[in-house]
């Protein structure tokens, strides 16, 4: 290597050094500070992993003796879980499809789209447990509470995702429908719906899958399904029962996940 490559030739203007990315630095420092604060807040430590690993041994050992027969004995609750997921999911997605069109600039006047998007953001901010607790308080323990909780939860998720698909639709056909003299609803049905349908179907299946997962959560507060079984067995310390259910549950979710991935590939 010769000196000419490192020393600029005389007279050549060296570009000024770019301004350091202060924003990035500030962001990184903020993240570090938040991390330290959060870690202190929850008393983060991995020590139990080495010292207290044995503390959970009994529980973990119980877990490794799953009582398969029990998983079969609660087949009615399994069925109820499926029913809740289907009923709440289908009703929720249907409503979401309508709301999504009302929440997008493409198919609705801007003021309506903006209002509805904000409402949906609020609706989505409540976690599934909160909906389940509310539903149980209003209609009592049981499947109806589960349906209501999942329904509320589903509408928010499906409407948001579908509204984003509507936003991203190709505007050409929409304009063509306008030029034909179509009304707002006709425009949505003829030009927008065919474009968002594959996405919507895949979201619907995803919502169904979410419902199966959430069934644990909502059952835990008394809203029906297999989660309710876990709640009882948990209070009776029947870990071998729980582990059998969990194992089946994981297999079901795994299969559903694969099926939904396959379906999504086919639809889109």
């Amino acid at each position, binding site marked *: 290597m010769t000196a000419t490559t490192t020393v600029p030739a005389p007279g050549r203007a060296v570009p000024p050094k770019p301004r350091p990315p202060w924003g990035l630095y500030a962001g990184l420092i903020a993240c570090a500070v938040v*991390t330290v*604060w*959060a*870690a202190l*807040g*929850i*008393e*983060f430590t991995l020590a*139990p992993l080495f010292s*207290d690993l044995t503390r*959970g041994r009994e*529980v*973990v050992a119980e877990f490794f003796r799953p009582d398969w027969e029990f998983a079969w004995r609660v087949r009615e609750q399994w069925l*109820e879980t*499926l*029913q*809740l997921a*289907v*009923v709440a999911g*289908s009703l929720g997605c249907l409503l979401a499809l309508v709301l999504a069109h009302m929440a997008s600039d493409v198919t609705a006047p801007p003021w309506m789209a903006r209002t509805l998007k904000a409402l949906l*953001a609020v609706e989505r*901010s*409540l*976690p*599934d*447990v*909160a909906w389940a*607790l509310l539903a149980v*308080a*209003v*209609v009592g323990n*049981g*499947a*109806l509470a*589960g*349906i*209501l909780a999942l329904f509320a939860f589903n509408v928010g*998720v499906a409407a948001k*995702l579908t509204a*984003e*698909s509507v936003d991203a639709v190709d505007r050409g056909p929409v304009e063509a429908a306008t030029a034909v003299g179509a009304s707002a609803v006709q425009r949505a049905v003829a030009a927008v719906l065919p474009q968002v349908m594959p996405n919507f179907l*895949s979201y619907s299946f*995803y919502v169904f899958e*979410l419902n199966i997962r959430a069934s*644990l*959560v909502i059952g*835990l*507060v008394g809203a029906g399904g297999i989660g309710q079984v876990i709640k009882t067995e*948990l209070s009776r310390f029947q*870990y071998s029962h*729980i*582990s059998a259910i*969990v194992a089946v*549950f*994981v*297999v079901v*979710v*795994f299969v559903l*996940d694969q099926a939904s991935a396959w379906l*999504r590939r086919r639809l889109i």
Partner: protein
Amino acid sequence: MRTVGTRPPAAGPVDGDRPKRPNPWRQVTGSLVTAVVVVLCVVTVDAQWARLSEAPGILGDYLRLMTRGVLQNPMADPYTDYWSKAFEYMVESLQMAWIGTLVGAVLSFPAAFLAARNVSPRPVVFVTRQVLNVIRAIPELILAIAIMLPIFGLGPLAGALALGVGSVGTLGKLGSEVIEAVDPRPVEAVAATGARRLHVLAWGVLPQALPEIVALWLYRFEINIRAGAILGAVGAGGIGSILTQLFEARLWDRIGITLFLVIAVTVLVDQLSARVRHRIIAGGGKDPVAGEAEALA
């Protein structure tokens, strides 16, 4: 207005030469099966639909009670305490979600590379993907009950770790997809300089994938705030613990205050995170997170 009849026909005869409609049996059977399943479920589910008729009235009462709680002067005596308690727990939820996401990010980062087809050999990709899929299928709740609570005891730490391990599956899988979508040409260019494999990853792949991967982390943070809520119900800290207690005691004014805080904080964090996400991937075109990440969460 012109009608069909008055228009000169394009061709001669009308019938017979029109193309036949292809048989749409796939869509028809698909919709039929779905409809039948839905109807069957609606009919057979053991739900006391009758209670729905009273529900609006009851809900109205509760909402009124909750609103009254929110509208009380927060500086007045018991209410100051209610607000600060709710806030404390919400902050704990945020801390759990943050640490959980961080743990998930750290664990999933190498996994994403191992699961990317354009980086790792096929057998490694296959095994990593299956492991990630299994992790994705285990709900955080189960991780907390079966593993974290026994080892780490009651408290937010167990919750944070459950969220962390639970995030690995999704973050790893989506991360690997981001890596696979990287433009191969710059990667080739780095390799062509004779750089070693790790350098190619660091200078060819990572700069392209990092913004989107960080966006995924932020997105997962938003999800973890919600997912952490249930963990409180089993003693793993966060807003869920106080929420379940309040509902058990039916303290509606305090429930109102707590839910209000949950909504306010969550919406705020969501907006903030969405803005940062868009900043990060600005210019990079589409937001990989918006549709897909949620669709895989």
